[in-house]
């Protein structure tokens, strides 16, 4: 999921296994993508203009990433989070579920950065594991900045994906002159992601019901069968999809109907105003340092 997460994964996995044992089924990321997707189509803001939402999310994202101090990213985080919770009406529980994992990873990484990275101005010394560690000021500063930058950026990304249906995002990209072939392929990929997720989940359950996961070796064997079979089905599906497309007059171009909700000028003006204000804040607080 993120940087440095592999290091932690062993432990994460064990923790999660406990949860799975409680729920009875092993969760995968599938649920996550399916649920994100569902909220994108059903949240209270889903009918608003995707252009507005995209502009808003991207400008907040850019400000978070470009701002040297944590003030702007924190503002961004608070803004996006309240919009997600109060305007889009995404349940807090789900938002936290999305958030806790990256937060944990990033916090951990930032601690590592703070501890091991840096060489100017020793700040403190700790004795740990029989070794003496020197903590440097610039390391800690980088750690903090990184943490808040990620928080701001992630929350604006979540705002985008939780409020905007993927199809509208792709159609906006098409309007924005992203190469047509990329958009066309994305539209197809998007559809088949969910077809395959369903297939994969059902197939995994079918294997589980015939005891395919009752042991490490069996699990590996079952998984390889699963992947192999899904791959064959993938290839088949490619052919059948082509057949189905041909049967409806596909000639190499995938045409789409464009009728997206129109952006409202008030909203656009509001976004620009907010972004400029944030940018100014970011500029003014440039030299602010936490440590």
């Amino acid at each position, binding site marked *: 999921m993120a940087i440095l997460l592999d290091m932690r994964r062993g432990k994460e996995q064990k923790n999660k296994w406990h949860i799975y044992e409680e729920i009875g089924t092993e969760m995968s990321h599938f649920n*996550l993508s399916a649920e994100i997707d569902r909220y994108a189509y059903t949240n209270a803001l889903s009918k608003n203009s995707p252009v507005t939402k995209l502009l808003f999310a991207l400008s907040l994202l850019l400000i978070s990433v470009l701002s040297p101090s944590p003030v702007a990213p924190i503002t961004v985080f608070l803004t996006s989070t309240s919009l997600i919770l109060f305007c889009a009406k995404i349940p807090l529980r789900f938002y936290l579920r999305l958030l806790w994992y990256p937060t944990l990873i990033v916090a951990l990484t930032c601690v590592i950065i703070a501890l091991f990275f840096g060489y100017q101005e020793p700040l403190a010394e700790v004795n740990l594991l029989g070794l003496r560690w020197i903590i440097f000021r610039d390391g800690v500063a980088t750690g903090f900045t990184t943490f808040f930058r990620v928080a701001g950026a992630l929350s604006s990304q979540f705002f985008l994906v939780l409020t905007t249906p993927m199809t509208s995002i792709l159609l906006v990209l098409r309007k924005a002159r992203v190469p047509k072939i990329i958009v066309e392929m994305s539209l197809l990929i998007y559809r088949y992601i969910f077809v395959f997720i369903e297939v994969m989940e059902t197939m995994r359950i079918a294997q589980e019901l015939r005891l395919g996961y009752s042991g490490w070796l069996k699990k590996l064997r079952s998984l390889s069968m699963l992947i192999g079979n899904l791959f064959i089905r993938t290839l088949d599906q490619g052919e059948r999809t082509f057949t189905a497309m041909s049967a409806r007059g596909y000639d190499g171009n995938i045409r789409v109907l464009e009728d997206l909700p129109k952006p409202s000028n008030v909203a656009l003006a509001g976004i620009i105003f907010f972004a400029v204000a944030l940018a100014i804040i970011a500029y003014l607080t440039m030299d602010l340092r936490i440590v």
Partner: protein
Amino acid sequence: MHIMEGFLPHPWWEIWFAVSIVVVILGVYKLKKLTERFPEAKPLLAVMGAFVFVLSALKLPSVTGSCSHPTGSGLAAVVLGPAIASVLSAIVLLFQALLLAHGGLTTLGANIFSMGIVGPFVGYGLWVASKKVRLPTSVGVFLAVALADLSTYVTTSVQLALAFPSTSFMDSFITFGSIFAVTQIPLAIGEGILAIFLFDFLVKYKGKLLSAMNVIGLRVGLQSQEDAK
């Protein structure tokens, strides 16, 4: 191996974006030419992209007891060539960022560079080289895919070390590199082995179709004929 949204500071994410976009545009150009000649390629490539996405959402058990997922870009490069593989990876990475929160939008450039460019080019280079020295197909596929994986992880370490230098670049590189090595090496081997099977399926079940379509045809078709001899 995805770098999380917002993790790379300015100006690094912009730099990687700039570098990646050049290659992706080249790939788009090639892909466009391919799909113009073979409309069948679009759905086929799309389902392959969806397959890679689904694989990445699946938790695979690996030797350390941890979990990780394959990148798929090595096999894609062997089959489709590195330029097209880079476009496909770019799209898959976009979906991973949006639907799984794997990676992010600003770090898309950096992730495309490591996973969609370095990986495929290394993999493809090795595949071509292994054919030159007449290694068996399975060995060639394994090497290409496993090393595509490893080169991806080395690249990510470089990207991180550049963005977060410790006392020196090397220092930082070694820190990041050794943290990743624990899971990435078994994973690379695992993906290499998996790729042998998938490649086999590809040739066995769809070889005819693919060579007829000429998407993968020229390479796979000729290759398998060569192997038959």
